[in-house]
């Protein structure tokens, strides 16, 4: 498939599916009762999906050696604590990035 066509197919199909997901309970199933089991499972979608997105960005997969990933793992854990305590996106970002820079500089110097 032509690359430009494929990109636009992705944009339109993913765009439409994302919009339908966003619209789902606001308009599409607004008057329908969610089955209890589904409702219960739904609660854990953000935690499971976001974690599945986060982990490969922190621990380079497939895991070959843990050593080089250590600064990112440490920075991510500290950022998690900051996010948990402060609920602030800017503070989480700031602490996470600065921690990573410091640890990478140290690893470069002494590693």
């Amino acid at each position, binding site marked *: 498939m032509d690359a430009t066509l494929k990109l636009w197919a992705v*944009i339109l199909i993913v765009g439409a599916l994302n919009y339908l997901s*966003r619209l789902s309970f606001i308009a599409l199933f607004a008057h329908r009762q969610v089955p209890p089991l589904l409702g219960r499972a739904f609660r854990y979608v953000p935690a499971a999906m976001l974690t599945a997105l986060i982990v490969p*960005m922190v621990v380079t997969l497939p895991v070959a050696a843990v050593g080089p990933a250590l600064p990112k793992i440490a*920075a991510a854990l500290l950022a*998690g604590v900051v996010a948990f305590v402060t609920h602030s996106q800017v503070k989480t970002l700031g602490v996470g*990035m600065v921690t990573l820079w410091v640890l990478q500089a140290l690893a470069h110097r002494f590693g």
Partner: protein
Amino acid sequence: MRRFASDRDFRAGFAAMLPVVIGIVPFGLVCGVGAAAAGASALGALGLSAIVFSGAAQILAVQLLAAGSPLAVIVLTCFVAGLRFLIYSAAMAPHLRPLPTRWQKGLAFLLTDQAFAASVRRFDAGGDPRGGGLFFLGGGFALWSSWQVTNIAGYFVGNLIPAAWSLDFAVPLCFIALVAPHFRTYPTITAALVSGFAVIAFAGLPMKLNLIVAGLIGIVAGTLADFTRDRWMPR
């Protein structure tokens, strides 16, 4: 937009989103860089950010496109990663119900992780639904417009950012900022831990299919943990 620009609630929503906007600047830049790296045209990059309007889906899409994955896999992965919008939609629905259908359809487009997190607090605080809707519109507009600017900036000048800055790392940090505050209940922590281990365990799967597998296993684990909590820790 002009008729909203002078509205008090619209402005309050816009202003409330500004700290979040600062927080997503690096994320937007990374998305723009990714689109350029995948060989997208400037118009294609803008199409991604303007229509898909989801950092997670955009990053997955450009990475899978660059790797030459089939269209069906790209669509499925982005859809599963976007399932969290169902939750946000369900949580926002009661607040938007008093609004006209036209408003519901428009505001749904602006539903993102960040807009949801900011607006739910505003809606929970009460007030008239129209004010809440305008607050959401103001915040969503701030996010959407700044998202286009940062994506395009990343597309054109992102390659000037030194690799030593590790700008990519801003992306997981944005998601950490969203998810970590929810690690307060045992089933939520179970869902995250199981999903995190599963995504590593299934790293051998091609085309990032480990994301879908891990996400689904994590959801099942969280649900099971929820049931056992009912059983062993009656509320």
